[in-house]
């Protein structure tokens, strides 16, 4: 077969290896974040945090993993078994798949899709089912309330999450992530699209159910919400999935608004990692500093403030793009 020449095979092998490296990096950074976050929370809230296992508590992750793997993997007898097993897999897989579209450096990245951004929205849409099915299959009041809150919140915030990025798409003229990064060579999109940045940041926090938008899993009110019946690695999938979500949203913010790999002096990969870590810190700082608002206030804020703001932003961007074109 002619197309199976050594060059093609080599290119395929390198592409697959790169993808595996990116996959492992995404999962591992998600896993390490569970510990790093607690240490940082301790720092910012003036307490110790987990500092007993290993130097500076770095061994805490291993301890947590051993514990989570060896716990009994219990499925409640009243649960809907199929959906109960399916839900954590969706939660983890849909977020991890979104890393497909993120260009890390000019040469690193899994896929160069023309519909790049839309692929992320599609995966974010699928991710809702994890919470919904998890809450339904648990047959538990708290889980059901959590699932309802989560799906209503995610649906509302996804509406303007899409709209907040359309300004960028209008300015670049493409959904392709590499085009978007290349379009920011002179000026990062955070400057002309500042309101887009703000609303996307808020929507990103809300879609990953992070504090202060963590009403779906509010411990004090509904005892962890949709994953209250989960144990062992199924809970671990939800748990690590949340942190993978943080890494994903941070990487997206970097790519879309902060110029991706662009930056002076340092190599591209370092700039990408620095910017992404900055946003991850921002996520943790938000959890350390902000209280949880009431649920109806969250919904009202989404529909009555953020949605009109993104619409106005889109209108103005459209007008400017038309005038300068």
């Amino acid at each position, binding site marked *: 077969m002619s197309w199976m020449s050594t060059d093609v095979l080599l290119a395929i092998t390198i592409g697959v290896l790169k993808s595996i490296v990116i996959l492992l990096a995404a999962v591992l950074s998600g896993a390490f974040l569970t510990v790093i976050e607690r240490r940082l929370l301790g720092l910012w809230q003036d307490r110790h945090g987990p500092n007993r296992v290993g130097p500076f508590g770095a061994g805490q992750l291993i301890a947590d993993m051993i514990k989570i793997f060896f716990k009994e993997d219990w499925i409640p007898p009243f649960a*809907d078994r*199929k*959906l109960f097993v*399916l839900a954590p897999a969706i939660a983890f897989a849909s977020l991890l798949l979104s890393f497909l579209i993120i260009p890390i450096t000019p040469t690193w990245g899994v896929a160069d*899709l*023309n*519909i790049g951004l*839309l*692929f992320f*929205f*599609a995966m*974010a*849409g*699928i991710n*809702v*089912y994890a919470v*919904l*099915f998890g*809450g*339904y299959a648990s047959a538990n009041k708290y889980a*059901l309330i959590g*699932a*309802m809150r989560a*799906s*209503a919140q995610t*649906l509302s915030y*996804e509406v303007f999450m*899409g709209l907040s990025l359309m300004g960028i798409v209008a300015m670049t*003229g493409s*959904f392709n992530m590499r085009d978007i990064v290349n379009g920011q060579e002179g000026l990062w999109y955070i400057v002309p699209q500042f309101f887009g940045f703000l609303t996307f940041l808020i929507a990103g926090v809300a879609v990953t159910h992070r504090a202060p938008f963590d009403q779906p899993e509010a411990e004090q009110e509904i005892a962890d919400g949709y994953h209250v019946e989960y144990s062992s690695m199924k809970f671990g999938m939800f748990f690590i999935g949340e942190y993978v979500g943080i890494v994903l949203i941070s990487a997206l913010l970097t790519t879309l608004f902060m110029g991706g790999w662009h930056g002076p002096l340092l190599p591209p990969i370092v700039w990408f990692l620095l910017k992404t870590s900055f946003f991850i810190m921002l996520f943790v700082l938000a959890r350390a500093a902000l209280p949880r608002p009431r649920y*109806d206030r969250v919904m009202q804020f989404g529909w009555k403030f953020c949605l009109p703001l993104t619409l106005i932003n889109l209108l103005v961007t459209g007008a400017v793009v038309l005038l300068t074109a």
Partner: protein
Amino acid sequence: MEIAFYLAALVAIVATFRVITHTNAVHALLYLIISLLAVAVVFYSLGAPFAAALEVIVYAGAIMVLFVFVVMMLNLGSQTADQERRWLAPRIWVGPSIMAALLLLVLVFSFWHGGGIGTISGEELSAREVGTRMFGPYLLAVELAAMLLLAALIAASHIGRNDEPQLERDMNESVQRAPAGNDEGRQS
């Protein structure tokens, strides 16, 4: 691309069949989601990645979530599963199946003779082209759809409207429910 098309089409048909025959409403909806995802792959294999992405975002990601939401709230028990099973009796589905089979026969024959079969080229249609078509020759359809959605929005907001402000109503309810002792405590 042809193999992808036929595989995805097969998945879509099997999943849709299971939507109809499944007795558990939530599981049936899960099959419907799979069917929609398969249809998205069909679009993709036909060279329409934009339509494929929108299919997942709009149908699988938004509309079906609301379906699952509503079915979840209805809290259907084993009774409904029994009812569904009874409704799947042959004397109920044979008639419509024959009629649908006839329609399928007509469709297959027309494809066979009419030469309406195009080959799958895998040529990609970009989002920009879709956009220029939508706001060019098909502008009227877009405008009409926008009108319809606006009408639906107004209707929904009218039905969901509370004449009493939310907070006031909540307070009234809590005052009515609270025991007398509490009430006095609040006034003092």
